[in-house]
Protein backbone atom coordinates (compact mmCIF):
# COMPACT_ATOMS: atom_id res chain seq x y z
CA UNK A 1 0.00 0.00 0.00
CA UNK A 2 1.27 3.44 -0.93
CA UNK A 3 1.84 5.54 2.16
CA UNK A 4 2.00 9.30 2.60
CA UNK A 5 5.78 9.06 3.00
CA UNK A 6 6.01 7.81 -0.60
CA UNK A 7 4.37 11.02 -1.76
CA UNK A 8 5.49 13.69 0.66
CA UNK A 9 9.23 13.08 0.75
CA UNK A 10 11.28 15.54 2.78
CA UNK A 11 12.83 17.05 -0.36
CA UNK A 12 9.35 17.73 -1.73
CA UNK A 13 8.17 19.42 1.45
CA UNK A 14 11.40 21.45 1.51
CA UNK A 15 10.89 22.71 -2.04
CA UNK A 16 7.23 23.44 -1.24
CA UNK A 17 8.12 25.50 1.84
CA UNK A 18 11.12 27.21 0.21
CA UNK A 19 10.59 27.19 -3.54
CA UNK A 20 13.72 27.87 -5.63
CA UNK A 21 13.87 30.30 -8.55
CA UNK A 22 10.63 32.07 -7.66
CA UNK A 23 9.95 35.28 -9.52
CA UNK A 24 9.72 36.76 -12.98
CA UNK A 25 12.10 37.56 -15.82
CA UNK A 26 11.64 40.62 -18.04
CA UNK A 27 11.20 40.27 -21.80
CA UNK A 28 12.67 39.05 -24.05
CA UNK A 29 12.55 36.01 -21.73
CA UNK A 30 9.84 33.56 -22.77
CA UNK A 31 6.72 33.63 -20.62
CA UNK A 32 4.25 30.74 -20.72
CA UNK A 33 1.31 30.01 -18.44
CA UNK A 34 0.30 26.51 -17.44
CA UNK A 35 -3.09 25.80 -15.99
CA UNK A 36 -4.80 22.79 -14.51
CA UNK A 37 -8.51 23.52 -14.98
CA UNK A 38 -9.57 20.65 -12.73
CA UNK A 39 -7.83 21.83 -9.56
CA UNK A 40 -7.07 25.46 -10.37
CA UNK A 41 -3.29 25.11 -10.12
CA UNK A 42 -1.45 27.78 -12.08
CA UNK A 43 2.20 28.06 -13.03
CA UNK A 44 3.96 30.71 -15.10
CA UNK A 45 7.37 29.78 -16.48
CA UNK A 46 9.86 32.48 -17.48
CA UNK A 47 12.74 31.13 -19.54
CA UNK A 48 15.76 33.06 -20.77
CA UNK A 49 17.42 31.23 -23.64
CA UNK A 50 20.72 32.34 -25.19
CA UNK A 51 22.91 30.50 -27.66
CA UNK A 52 21.02 27.26 -27.20
CA UNK A 53 21.35 27.40 -23.40
CA UNK A 54 18.63 27.92 -20.77
CA UNK A 55 20.50 30.72 -18.98
CA UNK A 56 17.82 31.46 -16.42
CA UNK A 57 14.41 30.20 -15.35
CA UNK A 58 11.90 31.71 -12.92
CA UNK A 59 8.48 30.56 -11.82
CA UNK A 60 5.38 32.05 -10.28
CA UNK A 61 2.02 30.51 -9.53
CA UNK A 62 0.11 28.66 -6.88
CA UNK A 63 -1.04 25.14 -6.28
CA UNK A 64 -0.56 22.03 -4.20
CA UNK A 65 2.71 20.86 -2.70
CA UNK A 66 3.29 18.44 -5.55
CA UNK A 67 2.83 20.95 -8.37
CA UNK A 68 4.83 23.66 -6.59
CA UNK A 69 7.71 21.44 -5.47
CA UNK A 70 7.88 19.80 -8.88
CA UNK A 71 8.23 23.21 -10.53
CA UNK A 72 10.92 24.21 -8.04
CA UNK A 73 12.82 20.94 -8.51
CA UNK A 74 12.49 21.32 -12.26
CA UNK A 75 13.99 24.80 -12.19
CA UNK A 76 17.08 23.61 -10.32
CA UNK A 77 17.45 20.63 -12.66
CA UNK A 78 17.32 22.57 -15.94
CA UNK A 79 18.86 25.96 -15.15
CA UNK A 80 22.09 26.56 -17.05
CA UNK A 81 21.68 23.43 -19.19
CA UNK A 82 21.79 23.27 -22.97
CA UNK A 83 18.38 23.02 -24.61
CA UNK A 84 19.26 19.51 -25.67
CA UNK A 85 19.96 18.54 -22.06
CA UNK A 86 16.78 20.29 -20.92
CA UNK A 87 14.68 18.32 -23.39
CA UNK A 88 16.37 15.11 -22.27
CA UNK A 89 15.61 15.87 -18.63
CA UNK A 90 11.98 16.62 -19.47
CA UNK A 91 11.70 13.34 -21.39
CA UNK A 92 13.29 11.37 -18.54
CA UNK A 93 11.02 12.95 -15.97
CA UNK A 94 7.91 12.28 -18.00
CA UNK A 95 9.10 8.72 -18.42
CA UNK A 96 9.35 8.51 -14.63
CA UNK A 97 5.70 9.61 -14.38
CA UNK A 98 4.51 6.85 -16.73
CA UNK A 99 6.70 3.76 -17.21
CA UNK A 100 7.78 3.70 -13.59
CA UNK A 101 4.23 2.79 -12.57
CA UNK A 102 4.65 -0.67 -14.07
CA UNK A 103 7.83 -1.28 -12.17
CA UNK A 104 6.24 -0.23 -8.89
CA UNK A 105 3.41 -2.61 -9.65
CA UNK A 106 5.32 -5.83 -10.12
CA UNK A 107 8.60 -5.08 -8.32
CA UNK A 108 10.45 -6.41 -11.36
CA UNK A 109 14.12 -5.63 -11.70
CA UNK A 110 14.53 -2.92 -14.23
CA UNK A 111 18.05 -1.58 -14.23
CA UNK A 112 17.39 0.85 -17.05
CA UNK A 113 14.63 2.60 -15.12
CA UNK A 114 16.69 2.55 -11.91
CA UNK A 115 19.61 4.10 -13.72
CA UNK A 116 17.40 6.79 -15.17
CA UNK A 117 15.92 7.62 -11.79
CA UNK A 118 19.40 7.92 -10.31
CA UNK A 119 20.34 10.26 -13.11
CA UNK A 120 17.47 12.55 -12.08
CA UNK A 121 19.08 13.20 -8.70
CA UNK A 122 16.77 15.15 -6.37
CA UNK A 123 13.97 14.85 -8.91
CA UNK A 124 13.75 11.17 -8.07
CA UNK A 125 11.96 12.26 -4.89
CA UNK A 126 8.90 12.72 -7.08
CA UNK A 127 8.96 9.04 -8.14
CA UNK A 128 6.38 8.16 -5.48
CA UNK A 129 3.79 10.36 -7.17
CA UNK A 130 2.99 7.60 -9.69
CA UNK A 131 1.51 5.57 -6.83
CA UNK A 132 -1.12 8.32 -6.57
CA UNK A 133 -2.42 8.54 -10.16
CA UNK A 134 -4.64 11.60 -9.64
CA UNK A 135 -1.58 13.57 -8.53
CA UNK A 136 0.53 12.87 -11.65
CA UNK A 137 -1.04 15.86 -13.40
CA UNK A 138 0.10 18.02 -10.46
CA UNK A 139 3.70 16.86 -10.89
CA UNK A 140 3.79 17.28 -14.67
CA UNK A 141 2.16 20.74 -14.89
CA UNK A 142 5.42 22.73 -14.74
CA UNK A 143 7.15 20.33 -17.13
CA UNK A 144 4.41 20.58 -19.72
CA UNK A 145 4.52 24.35 -19.39
CA UNK A 146 8.29 24.42 -19.92
CA UNK A 147 7.90 22.14 -22.94
CA UNK A 148 5.37 24.59 -24.36
CA UNK A 149 7.81 27.46 -23.79
CA UNK A 150 10.60 25.62 -25.62
CA UNK A 151 8.25 24.80 -28.48
CA UNK A 152 7.63 28.51 -28.92
CA UNK A 153 11.30 29.19 -29.59
CA UNK A 154 12.03 30.21 -33.16
CA UNK A 155 13.41 27.23 -35.06
Amino acid at each position, binding site marked *: *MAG*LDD*LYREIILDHYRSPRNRGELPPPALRVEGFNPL*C*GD*EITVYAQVEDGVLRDIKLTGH*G*CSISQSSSSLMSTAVKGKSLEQVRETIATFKQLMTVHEKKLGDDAEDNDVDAEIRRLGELAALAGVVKFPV*RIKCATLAWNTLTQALDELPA
Partner: protein
Amino acid sequence: MTNFDPQRVRTDIPLMRRVINGRPITYLDSGASSLTPRTVIEAMDRYYENHHANVHRGVYQTANESTAIYEGGREAAARFLNAPGGSGEIVFTKNATESFNLLARSWGTKFLAPGDVVLVTEMEHHANIVPWFQLREAHGIEVRFIPVGDDYRLDLSRIEELMQGVKLVSVTGMSNVLGSINPIRELADMAHAHGALIAVDGAQSVAHLPTDLVDLDIDFLAFSAHKMLGPTGLGIFWTRADILESMPPFLGGGGMIKDVSVDGYTPAGGPTRFEAGTPPIAEVAGFSAAVQYLEDLGLDNIAAYEKELTGDALTRLARNFGDTLRVIGPADTLERGGVISLDVKGVHPHDVAQVLDQFGVCVRPGHHCAKPLMKRFGLAATARASYGPYSLVDDTDVLLEALAHAVEMFA
Protein backbone atom coordinates in the same frame (compact mmCIF):
# COMPACT_ATOMS: atom_id res chain seq x y z
CA MET B 1 -36.46 12.25 17.07
CA THR B 2 -38.25 9.02 17.73
CA ASN B 3 -37.73 7.39 14.35
CA PHE B 4 -34.27 8.67 13.73
CA ASP B 5 -31.15 6.77 14.69
CA PRO B 6 -27.97 7.47 12.66
CA GLN B 7 -26.42 4.20 13.87
CA ARG B 8 -29.31 2.30 12.32
CA VAL B 9 -28.92 4.28 9.10
CA ARG B 10 -25.26 3.18 9.03
CA THR B 11 -26.19 -0.47 9.31
CA ASP B 12 -28.57 0.04 6.38
CA ILE B 13 -25.69 1.22 4.17
CA PRO B 14 -23.45 -1.55 2.84
CA LEU B 15 -20.65 0.84 1.91
CA MET B 16 -20.20 1.79 5.58
CA ARG B 17 -18.38 -1.54 5.98
CA ARG B 18 -15.51 -0.40 3.75
CA VAL B 19 -12.04 -0.14 5.19
CA ILE B 20 -9.81 2.51 3.59
CA ASN B 21 -6.06 2.49 4.23
CA GLY B 22 -6.62 0.24 7.23
CA ARG B 23 -9.27 2.41 8.81
CA PRO B 24 -13.06 2.29 8.69
CA ILE B 25 -14.39 4.67 6.07
CA THR B 26 -15.21 8.17 7.32
CA TYR B 27 -17.48 9.42 4.57
CA LEU B 28 -17.72 13.19 4.59
CA ASP B 29 -18.57 13.81 0.95
CA SER B 30 -22.36 13.65 0.93
CA GLY B 31 -22.42 17.03 -0.79
CA ALA B 32 -20.91 15.35 -3.84
CA SER B 33 -22.93 12.14 -3.59
CA SER B 34 -24.72 10.41 -0.74
CA LEU B 35 -24.23 6.77 0.21
CA THR B 36 -26.90 4.29 -0.78
CA PRO B 37 -29.12 2.33 1.64
CA ARG B 38 -29.68 -1.36 0.98
CA THR B 39 -33.41 -0.82 0.29
CA VAL B 40 -32.48 1.43 -2.64
CA ILE B 41 -30.06 -1.12 -4.08
CA GLU B 42 -32.60 -3.90 -3.55
CA ALA B 43 -35.36 -1.93 -5.29
CA MET B 44 -33.16 -1.68 -8.37
CA ASP B 45 -32.18 -5.37 -8.16
CA ARG B 46 -35.83 -6.36 -7.76
CA TYR B 47 -36.73 -4.39 -10.83
CA TYR B 48 -34.12 -6.15 -12.97
CA GLU B 49 -34.81 -9.59 -11.48
CA ASN B 50 -38.61 -9.53 -11.63
CA HIS B 51 -40.02 -6.79 -13.80
CA HIS B 52 -37.54 -5.48 -16.34
CA ALA B 53 -39.19 -4.38 -19.59
CA ASN B 54 -39.38 -1.13 -21.46
CA VAL B 55 -41.97 1.30 -20.20
CA HIS B 56 -45.17 2.54 -21.86
CA ARG B 57 -47.04 0.96 -24.74
CA GLY B 58 -46.21 -2.66 -23.86
CA VAL B 59 -49.28 -4.84 -23.28
CA TYR B 60 -47.64 -7.78 -21.53
CA GLN B 61 -47.51 -8.25 -17.77
CA THR B 62 -43.92 -7.19 -17.01
CA ALA B 63 -44.15 -4.17 -19.31
CA ASN B 64 -47.18 -3.01 -17.34
CA GLU B 65 -45.31 -3.61 -14.08
CA SER B 66 -42.31 -1.63 -15.31
CA THR B 67 -44.55 1.23 -16.36
CA ALA B 68 -46.21 1.16 -12.93
CA ILE B 69 -42.79 1.24 -11.22
CA TYR B 70 -41.65 4.13 -13.40
CA GLU B 71 -44.83 6.17 -13.00
CA GLY B 72 -44.76 5.32 -9.30
CA GLY B 73 -41.55 7.34 -9.13
CA ARG B 74 -43.46 10.44 -10.15
CA GLU B 75 -46.00 9.76 -7.40
CA ALA B 76 -43.18 9.39 -4.87
CA ALA B 77 -41.55 12.64 -5.98
CA ALA B 78 -44.84 14.56 -5.95
CA ARG B 79 -45.58 13.32 -2.43
CA PHE B 80 -42.02 14.04 -1.24
CA LEU B 81 -42.16 17.63 -2.51
CA ASN B 82 -45.86 18.29 -1.89
CA ALA B 83 -46.22 19.18 -5.57
CA PRO B 84 -49.44 21.19 -5.90
CA GLY B 85 -50.42 19.55 -9.20
CA GLY B 86 -49.36 16.01 -8.35
CA SER B 87 -47.26 13.52 -10.29
CA GLY B 88 -48.00 15.09 -13.70
CA GLU B 89 -45.60 17.88 -12.77
CA ILE B 90 -42.56 15.60 -12.32
CA VAL B 91 -40.11 15.20 -15.20
CA PHE B 92 -37.25 12.70 -14.98
CA THR B 93 -33.91 13.83 -16.38
CA LYS B 94 -30.32 12.58 -16.19
CA ASN B 95 -29.29 14.81 -13.27
CA ALA B 96 -29.86 18.27 -11.77
CA THR B 97 -27.59 19.73 -14.45
CA GLU B 98 -29.80 18.38 -17.23
CA SER B 99 -32.83 19.75 -15.39
CA PHE B 100 -31.31 23.23 -15.59
CA ASN B 101 -30.47 22.74 -19.25
CA LEU B 102 -34.09 21.70 -19.85
CA LEU B 103 -35.25 24.86 -18.09
CA ALA B 104 -32.91 27.13 -20.06
CA ARG B 105 -33.35 25.51 -23.46
CA SER B 106 -37.08 24.88 -23.34
CA TRP B 107 -38.66 27.53 -21.12
CA GLY B 108 -35.81 30.02 -21.56
CA THR B 109 -35.71 29.86 -25.34
CA LYS B 110 -39.47 30.29 -25.63
CA PHE B 111 -40.15 32.88 -22.95
CA LEU B 112 -36.99 34.98 -22.73
CA ALA B 113 -36.33 37.76 -25.27
CA PRO B 114 -33.07 39.60 -25.92
CA GLY B 115 -32.37 41.91 -22.98
CA ASP B 116 -34.46 39.90 -20.50
CA VAL B 117 -32.61 39.26 -17.28
CA VAL B 118 -31.98 35.97 -15.50
CA LEU B 119 -30.89 36.74 -11.94
CA VAL B 120 -28.65 34.10 -10.37
CA THR B 121 -26.29 34.37 -7.39
CA GLU B 122 -22.55 34.35 -6.87
CA MET B 123 -22.89 31.13 -4.88
CA GLU B 124 -24.41 29.05 -7.69
CA HIS B 125 -23.07 25.76 -8.95
CA HIS B 126 -21.91 25.98 -12.59
CA ALA B 127 -25.07 23.97 -13.47
CA ASN B 128 -27.10 27.09 -12.68
CA ILE B 129 -24.72 29.48 -14.43
CA VAL B 130 -23.41 27.95 -17.66
CA PRO B 131 -26.83 27.12 -19.23
CA TRP B 132 -27.75 30.81 -18.78
CA PHE B 133 -24.48 31.94 -20.33
CA GLN B 134 -25.25 29.63 -23.25
CA LEU B 135 -28.68 31.22 -23.57
CA ARG B 136 -26.99 34.62 -23.45
CA GLU B 137 -24.82 33.59 -26.42
CA ALA B 138 -27.77 32.20 -28.38
CA HIS B 139 -30.53 34.68 -27.49
CA GLY B 140 -28.90 37.77 -26.05
CA ILE B 141 -30.40 37.53 -22.57
CA GLU B 142 -28.63 39.21 -19.65
CA VAL B 143 -27.28 37.18 -16.73
CA ARG B 144 -27.03 39.11 -13.48
CA PHE B 145 -25.63 38.02 -10.13
CA ILE B 146 -26.84 38.64 -6.59
CA PRO B 147 -23.59 39.20 -4.65
CA VAL B 148 -22.54 37.19 -1.60
CA GLY B 149 -21.61 39.21 1.49
CA ASP B 150 -18.63 38.74 3.79
CA ASP B 151 -21.02 36.87 6.11
CA TYR B 152 -21.36 34.21 3.36
CA ARG B 153 -25.04 35.10 2.88
CA LEU B 154 -26.75 36.60 -0.15
CA ASP B 155 -26.38 40.36 -0.04
CA LEU B 156 -29.94 41.52 -0.70
CA SER B 157 -29.27 45.19 0.09
CA ARG B 158 -29.51 46.17 -3.60
CA ILE B 159 -32.10 43.58 -4.57
CA GLU B 160 -34.74 46.10 -5.75
CA GLU B 161 -32.24 47.51 -8.24
CA LEU B 162 -31.09 44.03 -9.30
CA MET B 163 -34.69 42.92 -9.90
CA GLN B 164 -35.27 45.46 -12.69
CA GLY B 165 -35.99 43.63 -15.96
CA VAL B 166 -35.74 40.20 -14.34
CA LYS B 167 -37.88 37.43 -15.85
CA LEU B 168 -36.39 34.58 -13.83
CA VAL B 169 -34.64 34.34 -10.49
CA SER B 170 -32.60 31.13 -10.33
CA VAL B 171 -31.05 30.40 -6.98
CA THR B 172 -29.72 27.52 -4.94
CA GLY B 173 -31.60 26.31 -1.87
CA MET B 174 -28.32 25.58 -0.12
CA SER B 175 -24.79 26.44 -1.23
CA ASN B 176 -22.68 23.39 -2.01
CA VAL B 177 -19.59 25.29 -0.78
CA LEU B 178 -20.74 27.55 2.05
CA GLY B 179 -23.63 25.53 3.44
CA SER B 180 -25.67 28.76 3.53
CA ILE B 181 -29.41 28.15 3.25
CA ASN B 182 -31.10 30.83 1.19
CA PRO B 183 -34.44 32.53 2.04
CA ILE B 184 -36.35 30.90 -0.80
CA ARG B 185 -39.86 31.96 0.20
CA GLU B 186 -38.72 35.57 0.58
CA LEU B 187 -37.02 35.47 -2.82
CA ALA B 188 -40.09 33.82 -4.38
CA ASP B 189 -42.35 36.61 -3.08
CA MET B 190 -39.90 39.20 -4.37
CA ALA B 191 -39.67 37.56 -7.80
CA HIS B 192 -43.44 37.27 -8.11
CA ALA B 193 -43.95 40.89 -7.02
CA HIS B 194 -41.74 41.87 -9.95
CA GLY B 195 -43.59 39.63 -12.39
CA ALA B 196 -40.72 37.14 -12.53
CA LEU B 197 -40.64 33.40 -11.95
CA ILE B 198 -38.25 31.60 -9.62
CA ALA B 199 -36.25 28.41 -10.09
CA VAL B 200 -34.49 26.64 -7.23
CA ASP B 201 -31.47 24.35 -7.30
CA GLY B 202 -32.47 21.75 -4.73
CA ALA B 203 -29.46 19.48 -5.24
CA GLN B 204 -27.95 20.26 -1.82
CA SER B 205 -31.15 20.88 0.10
CA VAL B 206 -33.73 18.19 -0.71
CA ALA B 207 -32.07 15.45 1.35
CA HIS B 208 -31.27 17.70 4.29
CA LEU B 209 -34.31 19.97 4.72
CA PRO B 210 -38.04 19.52 4.22
CA THR B 211 -39.10 20.81 0.78
CA ASP B 212 -42.74 21.84 0.52
CA LEU B 213 -43.50 23.32 -2.88
CA VAL B 214 -46.80 24.81 -1.71
CA ASP B 215 -45.11 26.62 1.18
CA LEU B 216 -42.12 27.71 -0.89
CA ASP B 217 -44.35 29.00 -3.71
CA ILE B 218 -41.61 28.55 -6.33
CA ASP B 219 -42.02 27.80 -10.04
CA PHE B 220 -39.20 25.40 -10.90
CA LEU B 221 -37.11 22.92 -8.92
CA ALA B 222 -34.11 20.88 -10.06
CA PHE B 223 -32.28 18.16 -8.14
CA SER B 224 -30.48 14.82 -8.45
CA ALA B 225 -31.42 11.44 -7.01
CA HIS B 226 -27.86 10.49 -6.07
CA LYS B 227 -27.50 13.30 -3.53
CA MET B 228 -30.60 12.07 -1.67
CA LEU B 229 -29.60 8.43 -1.04
CA GLY B 230 -30.77 7.40 -4.51
CA PRO B 231 -28.86 6.14 -7.56
CA THR B 232 -26.76 8.12 -10.04
CA GLY B 233 -28.08 8.83 -13.54
CA LEU B 234 -31.40 10.33 -12.49
CA GLY B 235 -32.42 13.94 -12.06
CA ILE B 236 -35.76 15.53 -11.30
CA PHE B 237 -37.29 18.63 -12.85
CA TRP B 238 -40.45 20.04 -11.37
CA THR B 239 -42.62 22.91 -12.53
CA ARG B 240 -46.27 23.85 -12.15
CA ALA B 241 -48.58 22.03 -14.58
CA ASP B 242 -49.59 25.21 -16.44
CA ILE B 243 -45.95 26.14 -17.06
CA LEU B 244 -45.07 22.55 -18.00
CA GLU B 245 -47.79 22.50 -20.64
CA SER B 246 -46.47 25.76 -22.11
CA MET B 247 -42.90 24.50 -22.51
CA PRO B 248 -41.71 23.14 -25.86
CA PRO B 249 -39.85 19.80 -26.01
CA PHE B 250 -36.12 19.83 -25.30
CA LEU B 251 -34.70 16.50 -26.56
CA GLY B 252 -36.45 14.82 -29.47
CA GLY B 253 -36.98 11.14 -30.18
CA GLY B 254 -39.10 8.19 -29.13
CA GLY B 255 -41.42 8.46 -26.17
CA MET B 256 -41.85 12.23 -26.33
CA ILE B 257 -44.27 12.35 -29.26
CA LYS B 258 -48.02 12.16 -29.77
CA ASP B 259 -47.66 11.67 -33.51
CA VAL B 260 -44.97 11.53 -36.20
CA SER B 261 -45.43 11.53 -39.96
CA VAL B 262 -43.17 12.27 -42.90
CA ASP B 263 -44.38 15.86 -42.59
CA GLY B 264 -43.42 16.42 -38.96
CA TYR B 265 -44.28 15.57 -35.36
CA THR B 266 -46.64 16.52 -32.56
CA PRO B 267 -45.15 16.35 -29.07
CA ALA B 268 -46.84 14.40 -26.29
CA GLY B 269 -48.46 16.25 -23.40
CA GLY B 270 -47.35 16.15 -19.78
CA PRO B 271 -43.94 15.22 -18.47
CA THR B 272 -43.26 12.50 -21.07
CA ARG B 273 -42.83 15.28 -23.64
CA PHE B 274 -39.45 15.91 -22.00
CA GLU B 275 -38.42 12.27 -21.66
CA ALA B 276 -37.16 11.22 -25.09
CA GLY B 277 -35.81 7.69 -25.35
CA THR B 278 -35.90 4.84 -22.85
CA PRO B 279 -35.73 6.42 -19.39
CA PRO B 280 -33.67 5.23 -16.39
CA ILE B 281 -36.33 2.84 -15.07
CA ALA B 282 -34.23 0.96 -12.49
CA GLU B 283 -32.95 4.29 -11.17
CA VAL B 284 -36.50 5.51 -10.74
CA ALA B 285 -37.26 2.34 -8.76
CA GLY B 286 -34.25 3.15 -6.56
CA PHE B 287 -35.33 6.78 -6.28
CA SER B 288 -38.78 5.78 -5.00
CA ALA B 289 -37.11 3.62 -2.34
CA ALA B 290 -34.82 6.52 -1.39
CA VAL B 291 -37.81 8.84 -1.01
CA GLN B 292 -39.48 6.24 1.20
CA TYR B 293 -36.31 5.87 3.26
CA LEU B 294 -35.97 9.65 3.78
CA GLU B 295 -39.67 9.95 4.66
CA ASP B 296 -39.29 7.18 7.24
CA LEU B 297 -36.36 9.03 8.82
CA GLY B 298 -38.23 12.33 8.62
CA LEU B 299 -36.66 15.37 6.96
CA ASP B 300 -37.24 17.45 10.09
CA ASN B 301 -35.30 14.88 12.13
CA ILE B 302 -32.48 14.81 9.58
CA ALA B 303 -32.28 18.62 9.51
CA ALA B 304 -32.18 18.85 13.31
CA TYR B 305 -29.58 16.10 13.62
CA GLU B 306 -27.29 17.52 10.93
CA LYS B 307 -27.55 20.94 12.58
CA GLU B 308 -26.22 19.38 15.80
CA LEU B 309 -23.37 17.67 13.95
CA THR B 310 -22.49 20.87 12.11
CA GLY B 311 -22.57 23.00 15.25
CA ASP B 312 -20.30 20.56 17.07
CA ALA B 313 -17.87 20.45 14.14
CA LEU B 314 -17.74 24.25 13.77
CA THR B 315 -17.10 24.68 17.50
CA ARG B 316 -14.35 22.10 17.63
CA LEU B 317 -12.68 23.25 14.39
CA ALA B 318 -12.46 26.78 15.80
CA ARG B 319 -11.24 25.56 19.20
CA ASN B 320 -8.62 23.09 17.89
CA PHE B 321 -7.20 25.09 15.02
CA GLY B 322 -7.82 28.77 15.71
CA ASP B 323 -6.28 30.92 12.98
CA THR B 324 -4.69 27.95 11.22
CA LEU B 325 -8.00 27.03 9.70
CA ARG B 326 -10.71 29.15 8.20
CA VAL B 327 -14.24 27.87 7.58
CA ILE B 328 -15.51 29.34 4.30
CA GLY B 329 -19.14 29.63 5.34
CA PRO B 330 -21.30 30.89 8.20
CA ALA B 331 -19.76 30.30 11.64
CA ASP B 332 -23.12 29.57 13.28
CA THR B 333 -25.78 26.99 12.42
CA LEU B 334 -28.56 29.48 11.75
CA GLU B 335 -29.92 28.81 8.25
CA ARG B 336 -26.91 26.66 7.55
CA GLY B 337 -26.54 23.05 6.41
CA GLY B 338 -23.87 20.43 7.02
CA VAL B 339 -21.42 21.52 4.33
CA ILE B 340 -18.11 22.75 5.77
CA SER B 341 -15.50 24.20 3.43
CA LEU B 342 -12.03 24.50 4.88
CA ASP B 343 -9.09 26.72 4.04
CA VAL B 344 -6.09 25.41 5.98
CA LYS B 345 -3.21 27.85 6.29
CA GLY B 346 -0.12 26.58 4.47
CA VAL B 347 -1.75 23.39 3.24
CA HIS B 348 -3.30 23.21 -0.20
CA PRO B 349 -6.77 21.59 -0.28
CA HIS B 350 -5.46 18.75 -2.45
CA ASP B 351 -2.80 17.98 0.11
CA VAL B 352 -5.37 18.21 2.90
CA ALA B 353 -7.58 15.69 1.10
CA GLN B 354 -4.60 13.44 0.35
CA VAL B 355 -3.55 13.29 4.00
CA LEU B 356 -7.16 12.78 5.11
CA ASP B 357 -7.50 9.84 2.70
CA GLN B 358 -4.74 8.11 4.62
CA PHE B 359 -7.08 8.19 7.64
CA GLY B 360 -9.97 6.83 5.58
CA VAL B 361 -11.56 10.30 5.53
CA CYS B 362 -13.36 11.17 2.28
CA VAL B 363 -13.53 14.92 1.68
CA ARG B 364 -13.54 16.85 -1.58
CA PRO B 365 -10.81 19.27 -2.62
CA GLY B 366 -11.35 21.74 -5.44
CA HIS B 367 -13.57 24.55 -6.63
CA HIS B 368 -16.76 22.49 -6.25
CA CYS B 369 -18.04 23.73 -9.63
CA ALA B 370 -18.53 27.17 -8.10
CA LYS B 371 -15.64 29.17 -9.53
CA PRO B 372 -17.33 32.60 -9.32
CA LEU B 373 -17.80 31.99 -5.58
CA MET B 374 -14.18 30.85 -5.18
CA LYS B 375 -13.04 34.03 -6.91
CA ARG B 376 -15.31 36.11 -4.67
CA PHE B 377 -13.37 34.88 -1.64
CA GLY B 378 -9.96 34.91 -3.32
CA LEU B 379 -9.57 31.15 -3.27
CA ALA B 380 -8.60 28.60 -5.92
CA ALA B 381 -10.04 25.72 -3.93
CA THR B 382 -11.21 24.49 -0.54
CA ALA B 383 -11.33 21.09 1.14
CA ARG B 384 -14.99 20.37 1.82
CA ALA B 385 -16.47 18.04 4.42
CA SER B 386 -20.21 17.40 4.20
CA TYR B 387 -22.55 15.38 6.40
CA GLY B 388 -25.43 13.02 5.79
CA PRO B 389 -28.02 11.28 7.97
CA TYR B 390 -25.51 8.45 8.55
CA SER B 391 -22.77 10.78 9.83
CA LEU B 392 -21.67 10.62 13.46
CA VAL B 393 -19.78 12.85 15.88
CA ASP B 394 -17.13 10.10 15.60
CA ASP B 395 -16.65 11.12 11.95
CA THR B 396 -15.79 14.62 13.11
CA ASP B 397 -13.32 13.11 15.62
CA VAL B 398 -11.43 11.38 12.81
CA LEU B 399 -11.63 14.49 10.64
CA LEU B 400 -10.04 16.58 13.40
CA GLU B 401 -7.35 13.97 14.05
CA ALA B 402 -6.45 13.81 10.34
CA LEU B 403 -6.51 17.59 9.94
CA ALA B 404 -4.12 17.96 12.87
CA HIS B 405 -1.78 15.53 11.13
CA ALA B 406 -1.95 17.51 7.87
CA VAL B 407 -1.23 20.79 9.65
CA GLU B 408 1.73 19.27 11.47
CA MET B 409 3.14 17.67 8.35
CA PHE B 410 3.22 20.88 6.33
CA ALA B 411 4.17 23.22 9.20
